[in-house]
């Protein structure tokens, strides 16, 4: 038996999901019809830190159209703090948020009271009627200062430092003692947010007849949300369903578990025996959906005079916000990536998470990678400068080599797995990027342009991206009886990653179909009961391998039945075009649909006469019972649990032009070299890179969350928070390498986050290079025109 079909994996087929979305037939949570639903609005803290003196909701309760108003006092056992997901010895002072504030508020936007009313307009009116009297407490805003001084965010803790840990590889102290040169600098990345275009939303409906509760949620993780709600609400799994229908972007923010609203809205539906919905507005999203990025790294590199990096020390502090439900996930991911693409044998990395009176941080596309990459790549540039060595050459001398794989960094961990880079060709990626950006000729061009008064600069950065973390994902593949459609069900969700296409390609490849003949069902706990969710560039690695195995099972069964039906030997059969046929005799064939009909002894030929056609074949089974427990259907199920994580890698290079007068920065070129192993659909991989780079560019020059010294959020709207439009994001030139991962049968690695990692480092390097005549150093991201001008003014050559 051989598969006769052309490979479907690797083809840039158009997406299965597009037609529906383009016609406005998407079904996002707020589109789910529930005309009878009650609507929720929250009273949220107007200040960053205060004691609640008076909270009186009686006038709101009395307002016409209001069903209920709850404060923490109404929540009973649910007033308890939300769960800490990853306790650890390095986290001695964990604090998680109460669903509704108790006695104290710790950030602007924290929910204090919940109004449930006949519509959102009325609910908001009632929020206005709540009497709230607060006694201000000093706000902790500067997280670096808060390490060892000033007021406390949580008065019952001895310190603002929630977590403090160190990871070590080799013998860094010795490497630094023996170093011929050491560079050391502090690099800072500011807070931003995932900022999906669709805000969060939750709709919950209790079916009074069955007592079952269905929750529509913009989550990236339906099954973990269901587990959390089962635990909290005391309903069994069979009476609690979580559905993430279409979700308008997540980027990590919607993978958090749990936001208070995700508990409170289902709780309201259960208690009020009704449908209840809450839609976050954009201001709430800015204030109360998690942020990320804020980290300050002090990094040191030890090296020999000829540019071999022998040691790295990083000590970084993370702006945690008021709570730490996700434990150390973000600092761990930053720490696991701190040595990047380089063969640095001795590493020490210390991480601390510091409470501040701001909304909490949780993973956002890239998680800690952009920050540690910013520190590392900027430090490598600094080392090159100190050594008087070309920065590309310095990188070349230190890259992990193709023969080094698997390359272990004993002592660092990614997603719980020891860091072992699995495969790649890092030197080739670098040379490709240098070539594409025209590195060798750039200095001459730059000098020429400078004479004309134009300031051009080039930035370069290498990165690695740990992807494909477990523990597992699964899939069920089956051929629908009668219609013959192939249906794939998984425990994942999708927020734009194109699973309906890429996953279909995997099944189609095995079953000899076209991708549009395969339907993907996701985001519904009632359809598939086990899995983690879509985050951490893990979905394709885990799920595609599970789908492939499940589809192979379907194919094996189909071949076995087809051999019976066609009275041929299985070895003589070929699969392709939705058919199985005898090799060399295409007319002796049977379709997947006919096999699916034939294996089911229950057949309604009078209802659907077309199914009677299978009678022309020999029986699918050689005896009347079910062989090998196969049952009456053509299906396969499989789970994939990776043994370790797959490491994608790449190089970014950019050329920018800076106007020293206005501080304006414009990208002239942006080159990405990208290796995520075998690509299922290159166009979709490119789309992921485009989007990732755009977010990285936003973190380089546009977006920051501005808090004043009282902890007020000063730019909580799209008018003030500069999210890039098409006019700000550069056109990106992509070059692919495809080094298969040895860790899974398909050779796939993840691709969701890579694009977002390098832009801050590349942009900073390019701006610094452009402004070299002024002696400007860039050690922060993002910049903006004012900051560029301030850097020039403060630089040695700036006053001239």
């Amino acid at each position: 038996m051989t598969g006769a079909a052309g490979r479907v994996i690797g083809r840039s087929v158009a997406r299965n999901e597009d037609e529906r979305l383009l016609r406005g037939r998407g079904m996002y949570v707020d589109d789910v019809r529930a005309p009878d639903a009650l609507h929720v609005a929250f009273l949220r803290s107007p200040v960053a830190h205060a004691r609640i003196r008076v909270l009186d909701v009686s006038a709101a309760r009395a307002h016409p159209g209001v069903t209920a108003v709850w404060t923490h006092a109404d929540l009973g056992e649910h007033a308890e703090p939300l769960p800490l997901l990853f306790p650890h010895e390095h986290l001695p002072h964990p604090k998680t948020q109460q669903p509704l504030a108790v006695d104290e508020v710790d950030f602007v936007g924290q929910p204090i009271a919940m109004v449930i009313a006949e519509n959102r307009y009325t609910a908001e009116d009632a929020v206005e009627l709540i009497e709230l009297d607060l006694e201000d407490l000093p706000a902790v805003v500067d997280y670096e200062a808060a390490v060892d001084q000033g007021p406390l965010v949580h008065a019952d803790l001895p310190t603002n430092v929630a977590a403090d840990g160190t990871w070590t590889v080799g013998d860094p102290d010795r490497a630094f003692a023996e170093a011929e040169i050491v560079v050391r600098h502090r690099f800072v990345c500011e807070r931003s947010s995932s900022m999906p275009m669709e805000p969060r939303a939750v709709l919950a409906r209790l079916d009074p007849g069955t007592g079952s509760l269905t929750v529509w949620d913009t989550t990236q993780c339906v099954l973990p949300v269901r587990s959390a709600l089962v635990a909290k609400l005391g309903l069994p799994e069979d009476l609690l369903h979580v559905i993430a229908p279409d979700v308008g972007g997540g980027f990590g923010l919607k993978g958090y578990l749990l936001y208070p609203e995700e508990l409170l809205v289902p709780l309201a539906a259960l208690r009020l025996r009704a449908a209840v919905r809450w839609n976050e507005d954009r201001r709430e999203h800015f204030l109360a959906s998690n942020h990320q990025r804020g980290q300050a790294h002090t990094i040191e590199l030890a090296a020999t005079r000829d540019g071999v990096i022998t040691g790295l020390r990083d000590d970084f502090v993370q702006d945690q916000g008021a709570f730490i439900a996700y434990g150390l996930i973000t600092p761990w991911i930053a720490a696991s990536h701190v040595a990047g693409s380089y063969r640095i044998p001795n590493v020490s990395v210390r991480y601390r998470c510091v409470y501040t009176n701001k909304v909490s941080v949780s993973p956002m596309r890239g998680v800690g990678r952009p920050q540690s990459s910013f520190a590392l790549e900027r430090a490598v540039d600094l080392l090159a400068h100190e050594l008087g060595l070309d920065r590309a050459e310095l990188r070349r001398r230190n890259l992990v080599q193709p023969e080094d794989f698997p390359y272990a960094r004993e002592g660092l961990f990614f997603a719980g797995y020891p860091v072992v880079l699995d495969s790649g060709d890092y030197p080739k990626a670098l040379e490709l990027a240098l070539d594409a950006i025209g590195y060798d000729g750039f200095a001459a061009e730059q000098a020429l342009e400078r004479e004309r008064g134009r300031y051009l600069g080039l930035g370069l950065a290498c990165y690695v991206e740990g992807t494909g973390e477990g523990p597992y994902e699964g899939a069920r593949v089956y051929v629908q009886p009668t219609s013959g459609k192939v249906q794939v069900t998984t425990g994942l969700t999708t927020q734009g990653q194109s699973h309906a296409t890429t996953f279909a390609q995997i099944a189609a490849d095995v079953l000899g179909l076209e991708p549009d003949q395969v339907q993907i069902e996701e985001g519904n706990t009632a359809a598939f009961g086990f899995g983690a969710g879509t985050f951490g560039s893990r979905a394709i690695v885990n799920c595609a391998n599970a789908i492939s195995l499940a589809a192979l099972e379907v194919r094996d069964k189909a071949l076995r039945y087809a051999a019976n039906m066609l009275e041929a030997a299985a070895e003589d059969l070929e699969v392709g075009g939705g058919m199985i046929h005898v090799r060399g005799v295409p007319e002796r064939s049977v379709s997947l649909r006919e096999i699916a009909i034939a294996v089911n002894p229950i057949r309604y030929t009078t209802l659907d006469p077309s199914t009677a056609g299978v009678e022309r074949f020999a029986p699918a089974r050689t005896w009347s019972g079910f062989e090998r427990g196969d049952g009456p259907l053509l299906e396969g199920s499989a789970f994939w649990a990776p043994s370790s994580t797959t490491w994608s890698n790449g190089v970014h290079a950019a050329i920018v032009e800076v106007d020293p007068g206005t501080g304006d920065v414009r990208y002239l070129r942006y080159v990405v070299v990208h290796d995520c192993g075998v690509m299922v659909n290159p166009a979709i991989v490119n789309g992921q890179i485009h989007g990732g780079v755009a977010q990285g560019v936003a973190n380089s020059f546009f977006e920051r969350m501005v808090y004043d010294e009282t902890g007020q959020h000063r730019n909580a709207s799209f008018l003030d928070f500069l999210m890039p439009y098409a006019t700000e994001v550069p056109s990106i030139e992509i070059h692919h390498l495809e080094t298969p991962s040895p860790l899974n049968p398909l050779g796939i690695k993840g691709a969701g986050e890579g694009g977002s990692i390098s832009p801050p480092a590349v942009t900073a390097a390019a701006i610094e290079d452009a402004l070299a005549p002024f002696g400007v150093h860039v050690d922060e991201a993002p910049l903006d025109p004012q900051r560029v001008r301030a850097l020039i003014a403060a630089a040695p050559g700036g006053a001239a």
Partner: protein
Amino acid sequence: MKHAVTLTVNGERVEREVEPRLLLSDFLRHELGLTGTHVGCEHGVCGCCTILVDGAAARSCLMLAVQADGVELRTIEGLAEGEELHPVQAAFREAHGLQCGFCTPGFVLAITAFLEESETVDLSDGAIREAIAGNLCRCTGYQNIVEAVRIAARAMGKASA
């Protein structure tokens, strides 16, 4: 106090009584069930709620339903002619111009208005980027949307300016 409004939506006459403070976006989504018009900010910046008001692109979150009295609206649901996608929709599919799809209806309608406006369009990268700079997308990095504009312009027979 409710007000009577009469308007045309996707070619059909609609008569309703509405609260004076009801946003046009909410009216379309909740009263008419036209949920293809998305709401991303409700303060006029993201463009997700863009619709065509008498042929011109407008943000439905910045209008009240009562202000739509007597006008002709086109939403994403009314763009395709039956089975056939509108050239702008088809171009988005061809160019992989959408990922999560949440910003997409707004972009598609804004671009439709832009392309229908004139016989010739400047199809340089810079000009297209300027033309779509009223809408935010968080997924695509815009590059494939720029390409979709080019494909659609060709399909609609627009000469390059």
